[in-house]
């Protein structure tokens, strides 16, 4: 898929674990893990909003488009 999830990079920068972020955003760790590994088909605005809020970033920091 040309959309690449950069969640792992932002999480490493913020030094936050998957469990902690999942708890703060209010989604399951399993779902967050799927998102981190790019195994999802869609992301809700509410989830994106929660991630941006907790990671103090913009949606563009989490998502990247690659034509290849």
């Amino acid at each position, binding site marked *: 898929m040309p959309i690449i999830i950069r969640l792992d990079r932002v999480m490493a920068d913020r030094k936050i674990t998957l469990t902690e972020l999942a708890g703060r955003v209010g989604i399951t760790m399993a779902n*967050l893990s799927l998102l981190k590994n790019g195994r*999802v*088909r*869609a992301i809700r605005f509410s989830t994106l909003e929660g991630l941006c809020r907790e990671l103090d970033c913009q949606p563009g920091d989490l998502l990247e488009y690659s034509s290849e």
Partner: protein
Amino acid sequence: MVQYLGKKSVSSILKTVLDLVWYLGLAGTVVAALFLGHTLVSSQPLSTGSLQIEMPGLIFRFTDGIPQVLPTNLSVQFMLVLLLMFIGVLVLYQLRKIFATLTAGTPFTDENVGRIRIIGIALIAGALFESVIHILNGVYLSNILRMPGVETGVNMKIDLTGVFMGVVVIILAEVFRYGAYLQEEQDLTV
């Protein structure tokens, strides 16, 4: 409030009932197959001392027996009835699987689409086989029944209601296919 899906629901009770009916149907089919096998292998004329033929709204009881009835006369009908029983058992098996998913709370799966489709095809096949059995029974009975002043004829009627039901079930399978697609989309959305 009545709970229709999940554990301890209407679907779980129906699943238990279907399990019971399936095992009984399976046993009945095996017994019928053994009876058919015995009838076909045996060269003796079929005992008609207690022969009874049931038709919709009418029962024929041959109390004096019919000497000219031989096993081969009814073998085609027996085989078709057996085939009909196999179709019934197949439908029951698929229904059991579907109700198991209803009890588990995951009805919208590609497997269920296939199962509902099989049920639809089986309903059409069953309706057609049943019509053929009725026609063959009509041919058979019109040949052996002689009543003064009464002319017997064969009623060549196909059960279109059963065929229609089968088509409706196949269309429902397509609705389920869309449901399974939506379920997958929902599951892959975080």
